[in-house]
C-alpha cells in the first residue's frame, strides 16, 4: 500500500476532508476555524464553504449549539482552541452532550459531535491557561469517549472513526504533535476507538502512556535498552474506553507497570490505570506501580520554567530504573 509522509496536523486535515466529502452533514465549528491557529483546518473553508463556520469567543455557547445541531441531523466537528478553554465548555460537553441521549430515553436522540481539543500540553511558556493537559478530567463522564492520538497515522484513522461515531467524542491534540511527521497510507482506513497499541515491544517493564509523552517514553526506552532494560511501550490512544486487556496482557508479561502522562498525578490517567491493574492484575506485579505525571503545580507561564513541571526523558529513565 502506497504511503506518504505528512504531519499530524495534515493527517487530521486529510481525515476531516475525506469525511466532509463523504457526508455533507458534517460541519466544522470553531474560533478562527477558517484560517486556524493550529493549521489543521486550513484550506477547508475554500473547499467546503459555509460548512466551515468561524465561531465567536463563546466556548460554552458553540459547544452547546453543536449538541442542538447534532440532535437534529447534523454532525458537527467542533474545535476548542485550547484544552484550558474546555472549562468554559464543560457544561455543554459533560452535562449536555454526554447525558442528552440517556436522559431523553435513547431512541432517536443521539449526539454525534466530535470536540477537537486543540493545543493541549505545555510548551513555550503557554502556562496555566494555555498549556494544561486536562483530558483526565473528561474520562470521568459516562456518555463521552475520549481519545488522544500520538502519530499522524493514528490521528487520521481515529478522527475519521470519531466523526462516524454516533456518540460525543473528545479528540485531543497536543501542540507539539502538530508538526510530528509520519507515514500515512494513501488508501482509506479507519482505526477503532478503544484499542491501545504496543508501540515498542519489551519484556522487562510496561510503560503505559499516550500523546506527546509517548515520544519521550520511546526515547527513554532506547536509553534504558542501553542498560539492558527492555521496556514495552503502550500507546493508549483511547482513554475512555480504556483498553484494559492490552495493559493487563503486557503487565502479565513484564510484571512491572509505569504510567506516564503530562497531566497532574492526582486523579490522572495513570491513577486509573494503576487502579485497573490493582483490581484485575495485582498478582502479575513484582514491584510497586510508578506514576510519572505532571507535578502538583500551577504550570508557570515561562518557557524556562514550564518544562520543570512536566515529565522529561531523564525523569522517565530514572523512575523506570528505580524498579530494577
Amino acid at each position, binding site marked *: 500500500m502506497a504511503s506518504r509522509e505528512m504531519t499530524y496536523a495534515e493527517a487530521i486535515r486529510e481525515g476531516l476532508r475525506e469525511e466532509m466529502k463523504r457526508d455533507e452533514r458534517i460541519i466544522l465549528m470553531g474560533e478562527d476555524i477558517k484560517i486556524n491557529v493550529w493549521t489543521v483546518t486550513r484550506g477547508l473553508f475554500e473547499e467546503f464553504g459555509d460548512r466551515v463556520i468561524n465561531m465567536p469567543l463563546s466556548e460554552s455557547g458553540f459547544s452547546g449549539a453543536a449538541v442542538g*445541531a447534532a*440532535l437534529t441531523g447534523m454532525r458537527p466537528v467542533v474545535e476548542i482552541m485550547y484544552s484550558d478553554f474546555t472549562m468554559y465548555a464543560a457544561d455543554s460537553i459533560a452535562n449536555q452532550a454526554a447525558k442528552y441521549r440517556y436522559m*431523553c430515553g435513547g431512541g432517536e436522540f443521539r449526539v454525534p459531535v466530535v470536540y477537537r481539543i486543540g493545543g493541549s500540553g505545555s510548551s513555550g511558556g503557554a502556562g496555566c491557561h494555555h498549556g494544561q493537559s486536562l483530558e483526565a478530567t473528561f474520562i470521568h463522564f459516562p456518555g463521552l469517549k475520549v481519545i488522544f492520538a500520538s502519530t499522524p497515522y493514528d490521528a487520521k484513522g481515529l478522527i475519521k472513526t470519531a466523526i462516524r461515531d454516533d456518540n460525543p467524542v473528545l479528540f485531543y491534540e497536543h501542540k507539539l504533535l502538530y508538526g510530528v511527521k509520519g507515514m500515512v497510507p494513501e488508501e482509506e482506513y479507519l482505526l477503532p476507538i478503544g484499542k491501545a497499541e504496543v508501540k515498542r515491544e519489551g519484556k522487562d517493564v510496561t510503560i503505559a502512556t499516550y500523546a506527546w509523552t509517548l515520544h519521550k517514553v520511546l526515547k527513554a526506552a532506547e536509553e534504558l535498552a542501553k542498560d539492558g532494560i527492555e521496556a514495552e511501550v503502550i500507546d493508549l490512544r483511547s482513554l475512555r474506553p480504556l483498553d484494559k486487556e492490552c495493559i493487563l496482557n503486557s503487565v502479565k508479561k513484564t510484571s512491572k507497570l509505569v504510567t506516564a502522562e503530562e497531566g497532574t498525578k492526582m486523579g490522572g490517567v495513570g491513577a486509573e490505570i494503576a487502579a485497573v491493574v490493582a483490581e484485575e492484575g495485582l498478582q502479575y506485579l513484582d514491584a510497586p506501580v510508578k506514576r510519572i505525571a505532571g507535578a502538583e503545580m500551577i504550570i508557570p507561564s515561562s518557557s524556562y520554567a514550564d518544562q520543570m513541571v512536566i515529565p522529561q526523558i531523564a525523569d522517565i529513565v530514572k523512575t523506570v530504573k528505580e524498579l530494577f
Partner: protein
Amino acid sequence: MATIDKETLLKIYRNMVRLRFFDDKVNEMVASGVRITQHSTHGQEATTIAACAALKPTDYVMPYHRGWGWAIGKGMDPKILLSELLGKTTGCCGGKGGVHIADCSLRIMGRPGVQAAHIPIGAGVGLSIKFRKTNEVVLVFFGDGASNEGNVHEGMNLASVWKAPVVFICENNLYALFTPNIETTSVRDIADRAQGYGMPGVIVDGNDAIGVYEAAREAIQRARSGQGPTFIESKTYRIHGHTAMDRFHLGVYRAKEEVEEWEKKDPLRRLRQRLIEMKVASEAELNKIDEQARLEMEEAEKFAKDSPYPTREEIFQDVYVD
C-alpha cells in the same frame, strides 16, 4: 384577535385547562407523598400553551424547568408525561428521564436540568434547520432567573449572528427560587437586552393568552421567513412556590397580598371570560371541556400508577449508541 380562528382559541383554552388540572394533579400527588420534582405553572399557563399553539407539528421546542405546558402544548399525552415523572417504562423517556421530558416525534428536544444550558442548544437547532433547509422554527423557553446565565448571552448572540429561526420566550415571573429578580437582574424589562443581540425585544402580558399567541405567531412568522430570532418577554407570576416543597412563598420572600393581587389576573379565568364575550363558546361548552380535562388527569394518574418500572437492564441501556 379577529384573525385567530375559533378552533385555535378553543385549543388554547383546552390545553390551558389540561395544564391547570395536570398541575393540580401533580401537586395533589406530591402532597400525598409521591416523589415528583414539580415546578408548578399555576398562573403561568398562557405563555407556553399559547406560544405552542402558533407552531406547526414539525417545529421544535426547547423546554425549560417550570411546569409541563410546553409538553402539553406540543401534544404530549398526559398519561405519558405523568408516567415519565413517576419513572415508569410507559413514560416518554422510558422512565429514565424523569423531569427531563423529551419526545423526538413531537419535537420536544429535551429539558435540561441546568439552567440556560438549552439556549445555545436551541441556537444549534436553528443552525441545523438552516443547513437542512426544512423551514422549521424552534421555540426556546426559559425564565427570568436563567436570563442572567452566560449561556443566554452566548446562545442569543449565536442565533442572531446566524439569523437562525429561533424564538426566545422568557417567562418573567419576578422570582428565581426564593429571590426577587430586583436583587439580581440589571433591568426590569429583560426584553431590553434583546437590543444587544440585534433582535427585536417584545413584551407581552403573560396572563393574556391571546396576546401571547399573537406575539408568538408574529415572531414565528418572522423566523420562518428568514429574518432571524425574536426575544419575547412574557410578564407573569407563579402563584405557587418554586417547587411543591417551597414553604416560604407566602409571607417570607413575597407578601401574601402580592400573590392575591396576581390571583385576580388568573390567565385561565381571563381567557374563559373572553371566549364567552366573543361568543366562541358558551359557558356550558367550556364546562364540558373542563370536565373532560379533569377526567383525563384522573385516567392519567391511574395509567401512570399502574405502569411498571423499567427493568434494571433497561435502566442501564442508552448511555451510548451501540
